[in-house]
């Protein structure tokens, strides 16, 4: 008797759920649905928020200007919570239940990596705008496109800087967090150092969230490297710099591999320890692309908080999506995919054209930049043509500032 009551209860519950889920996203009948996956909660929520706001700002602008051929774009944003398996469920829901015509977003390499397989299998075009591990576009999957450069190209500007200015740099230490971003980025950079003739004397990973990097740093210090290259998210980056200062460690250059090092919070948390730290970056408000500066100012005005390259990626991705939807022959996923492949436009993030090179397909190729924290502001210092300020090299020692 007990068990049948359990079952009856269960079936009632199931029935209720199914009924109500039906009246969920009815939305507007005449809109085009685009699915976006972002980490809105969880550890990566901060970046997810910036991208979310950027997407919303862009889609509002686009819809206000008439949408796509008269139809409004409706963004359905799903929370991946920063976990690959949740991301997978989210993408499946978007594809099968919400029946979106295409996908966007993709923050965090590991989550993106897990979700693109689903998109490819379901033949749904996916425009990745942040996940940077190289292999995302190295699978030969024709439904996956990437707006942003892969992590191996992040240090591009830094390398040209070394070739021209930092010619006396001979040894490198690479520190990276143990995530997909850190592990793959560090491997690529190590290879590139070898190609440049630099010696990688130490390459170490660490678990993000460590309290005390000093044992690691004192080890690094004893090896007296010329350059310390760090791939970290924001808080580890701040601690690394603060503790390097406390240990009075003075390589010729501290260089960050974007991510944590270019956020305004880095300066807030690291304070004076952030001074003269370089970083690779994909975008700053001062890049010579139309709309870059305006995007930054609009965002700050609307949300009262700064934005950075992740936001620019999202903002531009939205414009690319709108452009694709305008050009596509029909709303079938294959036509959209073809329209996506033919993209050739300029955005606030830079020019967008998907090409194939090396092992990659459907990858947008963009130059990267080198920035440096000078007087608490993030200045573009290389290439010279777009620099907002001259670089400071070599940085003066800690106790001489």
């Amino acid at each position, binding site marked *: *008797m*007990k*068990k*049948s*009551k*359990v*079952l009856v209860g*269960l*079936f009632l*519950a199931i029935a209720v*759920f*199914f009924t*109500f*889920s*039906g*009246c*969920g*996203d*009815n939305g507007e009948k005449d809109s085009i649905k685009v699915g976006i996956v972002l980490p*809105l*909660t969880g550890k990566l929520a901060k970046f997810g928020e910036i991208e979310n706001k950027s997407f919303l700002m862009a889609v509002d602008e686009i819809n206000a200007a008439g949408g796509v051929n008269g139809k409004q774009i409706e963004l359905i944003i799903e*929370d991946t919570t920063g*976990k*690959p*398996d*949740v991301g*997978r*469920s989210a993408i*499946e*829901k978007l594809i*099968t*239940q919400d029946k979106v015509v295409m996908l966007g977003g993709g923050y965090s390499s*590991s989550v993106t*990596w*897990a979700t693109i*397989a*689903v998109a490819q*299998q*379901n033949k749904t075009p996916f425009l990745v705008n942040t996940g940077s*591990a190289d*292999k995302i576009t190295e699978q030969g999957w024709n439904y996956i496109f990437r707006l942003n450069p892969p992590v191996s190209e992040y240090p591009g500007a830094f390398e040209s800087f070394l070739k021209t200015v930092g010619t006396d740099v001979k040894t490198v230490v690479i520190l990276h967090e*143990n*995530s*997909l971003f*850190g*592990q*793959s980025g560090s491997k690529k950079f190590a290879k590139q150092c070898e190609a440049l003739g630099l010696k990688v004397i130490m390459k170490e*990973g660490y*678990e993000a969230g460590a309290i005390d990097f000093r044992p690691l740093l004192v080890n690094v210090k004893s090896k007296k490297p010329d350059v310390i290259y760090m791939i970290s998210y924001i808080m580890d980056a701040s601690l690394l710099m603060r503790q390097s200062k406390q240990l009075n460690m003075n390589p010729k250059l501290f260089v960050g591999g974007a991510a944590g090092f270019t956020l305004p919070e880095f300066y807030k948390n690291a304070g004076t320890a952030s001074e003269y730290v370089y970083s690779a970056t994909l975008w700053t408000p001062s890049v010579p692309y139309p709309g870059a500066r305006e995007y930054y100012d609009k965002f700050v005005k609307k949300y009262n908080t700064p934005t950075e390259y992740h936001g620019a990626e999202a903002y531009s991705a939205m414009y690319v999506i709108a452009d694709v939807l305008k050009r596509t022959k029909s709303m079938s996923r294959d036509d959209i995919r073809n329209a996506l492949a033919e993209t050739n436009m300029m955005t606030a993030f830079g020019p967008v054209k998907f090409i194939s090179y090396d092992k990659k397909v459907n990858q947008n190729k963009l130059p990267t930049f080198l920035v440096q924290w000078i007087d608490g502001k993030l200045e573009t210092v290389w290439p010279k043509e777009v620099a907002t300020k001259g670089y400071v090299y070599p940085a003066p020692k800690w106790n001489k500032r």
Partner: protein
Amino acid sequence: MKKIAPLILLIILIIFPLVIQNAYYQHLMILVLMWVVIGSGWNVIAGYTGQVSFGDAAFFGTGAYTAGILAYHFHISAWWGMAFGGIMAMGVAFPFGWICFRLRGAYFALASLALNEVCRHIATVAEPLTQGMVGILIMPSFLSKIPYYYIALALAVLSVGFVQIVMHSKWGYYFLSIREDQDAAESLGINTHHYKMVSLNIAAFLTGMAGALFMNYMGFIDPSVVFSLHDISIMAILVGIVGGVGTIFGPVVGAFVMVAVHEFFRTGFFGLFKGLAALTGSDFLIVAAKYISQAHVLGFGILVVLVILLLPNGIVGDWKKIVDKLFPFKKKGVST
């Protein structure tokens, strides 16, 4: 009635994917079935034998990685991982149990927690083997969910059936005696160490198979996903306890409830609020919907607290209590 009910449930489960075509719900049910397997396994070692383990993820992850490594490095279909996954998980359970079963209660639980974390760390740094945080990605064998559903269903039925058989056998009695009073059992001549090992290995085997299924179905794993303390180990415990510790069908109910509740909260009551908001145009409901989806983990946590406070023996274990509370006028005769 008692005998027929499970059969009815089974029939419904069998025809489920043919009736409900929506891939999203099929996905949820596959997860439910997977958790039935894991929950049953946990129930054996914890519910019946009284050794609460916080480290089920160690077995789960081992099973998942076995399948993944077979596919990635040896190019053997990951389905072989289903069989080997369970065996490899036993390979982890065996030395662990051998060494750590001398610990009791809380200490054992902590040791299992440590095992969980050690496995996770090893998976993260042993890059040549496990690809570290890059994870292992394989293309799922089937596009449709239906084959996965039936495999999961078969696995779940096997697990529950197996646990049923074990618990009605002599082993079952030994397990229970260890749970009730290990020293008394020992003094009666029961080799408690031996039976604890058996119990643990059963749990490990089932959980390992579930892990391999996960690898095959999800197509992507990495250390933080499959060795996760919160998402796997603690979820397993919740499935067991919410469902009903020490009952055969506890894990079944628990799996369904936990997955449903989790997804329920994540999607804001399956869009109930959004739907109501659209119907009524109420601003309050729209804002409420937004907050509920943001606070989905909070809701989940509160639910856990409430369930443990009010239904300490789980839904199946405390079923009488629930019935009495909900239908107070249905009291027939003397209640116990």
